[in-house]
């Protein structure tokens, strides 16, 4: 079972929300599956049509509810199914990171990655990296005990 915040990090299993865009990142995650590429199960996906749908309020809410990390996956710049939703997301994330820093939350807990429908391997890799990074950062101070 999960350890409480401050509990020894050996047993610490991060809880991470992942917002995946329908056309690239979500398909990329499927591709990771069809290629049977193992990655940690700490990340639970929420499918949205476009990464541009991800309202900064969702991200802050996830942290408020105690998420140890938030992941956003979108199409590569230029490939957005909706022209430039991913670019708007990139700008929102850039601003959010600065906000998180001021709030005292490590901005590394928020990660944006471009994953195309064919990049199953990349999806598995970045999730693995992210989970490791969060483990290293330890539990979010806002975690519900």
């Amino acid at each position, binding site marked *: 079972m999960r350890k409480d915040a401050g509990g020894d990090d050996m047993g610490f299993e991060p809880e991470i929300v992942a917002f995946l865009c329908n056309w690239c990142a979500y398909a990329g995650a499927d591709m990771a599956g069809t290629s049977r590429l193992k990655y940690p199960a700490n990340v639970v996906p929420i499918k949205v049509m476009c990464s541009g749908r991800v*309202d*900064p*309020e969702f991200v*802050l*809410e996830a942290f408020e509810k105690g998420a140890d990390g938030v992941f956003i996956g979108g199409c590569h*710049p230029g490939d957005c199914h909706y022209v430039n939703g991913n670019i*708007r997301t*990139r*700008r*929102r994330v*850039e*601003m*959010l990171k*600065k*906000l998180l820093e*001021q*709030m*005292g*939350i*490590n901005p*590394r*807990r928020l990660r944006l990655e471009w994953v195309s429908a064919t990049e199953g391997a990349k999806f598995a890799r970045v999730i693995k990296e992210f989970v490791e990074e969060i483990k*290293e*950062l*330890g539990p*979010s*101070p*806002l975690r519900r005990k």
Partner: protein
Amino acid sequence: MKKKIAMYWGAGCGGCDVSLLGIHEKLLELLDDIEIVFWPCATDFKYEDLEKMPDKSIDIAFYNGAIRTSENEEIAKLLRKKSKILVAYGSCAIEGCIIGLANLYDREDIFRAVYLENETTPNKEKIVPGSRDKEEELELPEFLPHLKVLSDVVEVDAVIPGCPPTKPVLAEALEALLSGKTEFGKSVALCDECPRKDTKPEKIEIDRFYRWHEKQDDGKCFLAQGIICMGPATLAGCGGECIAANIPCTGCMGPPPKVRNQGAAMLSAIASLLGEMDEEKEKEVIESIRDMVGTFYKYTTAKLLPKGRVKDES
């Protein structure tokens, strides 16, 4: 039958009380239909008097100011107990207002800034208030580790937004409350009544930000000028006083009904309005905002950080 009214002033600037005096003659007229049973600022009553009152004996209690000391909290609970309708009056009570910015720092930081690292304060003995005075052993009440808002402590029936509530807002609110209504005020954002409403271009594209002291104002929609204006994420009702004075809205009315996180809502809008530019320029432009909390949460930091600054040791 006169309505029994109470007004208490917590950790705030007093502007809310002045705003109530601010309705001037109207206040004198009101004295016919209301009876002020508790208003430490303008009349002379003790807290004991309040404790003695039977529960729910006050018709409408206004609490203004934030909750900074345990005393504030006690009074809030007492007022809740004694009144039928408890109203959060003004930005401090509703969302912490400017002084909520204190939640970005620890009590220790504040003491250091005021008493120890202050150029006009030599203070060689490194004295900090509250530490015991050998001679007299006077004690000071404790300064809570972080600032709270009224709804953190008790249930609130109605809110009168603004820092402080402006005449039109106040007039409507008082009339509604005296006739027993707890729902009143506008439910759209400021742009709806903005004096510069008609100067909005079809599409707004921001290529760089200007701070309002940096640019000769051309009288058009501030966002269209690249000047951050909180209007779109701020409740209407004030009539856009600041904008009429050529200063962009800073958000003191708090968010419109469906928005819980005023800052995030505006941050998202601003990020979305940036024009075509490469990633490098993008970073630079965003960097130029400098102070996210101070810009987007000027009046709602206490809501963003209800338990004070997060301590992410990592």
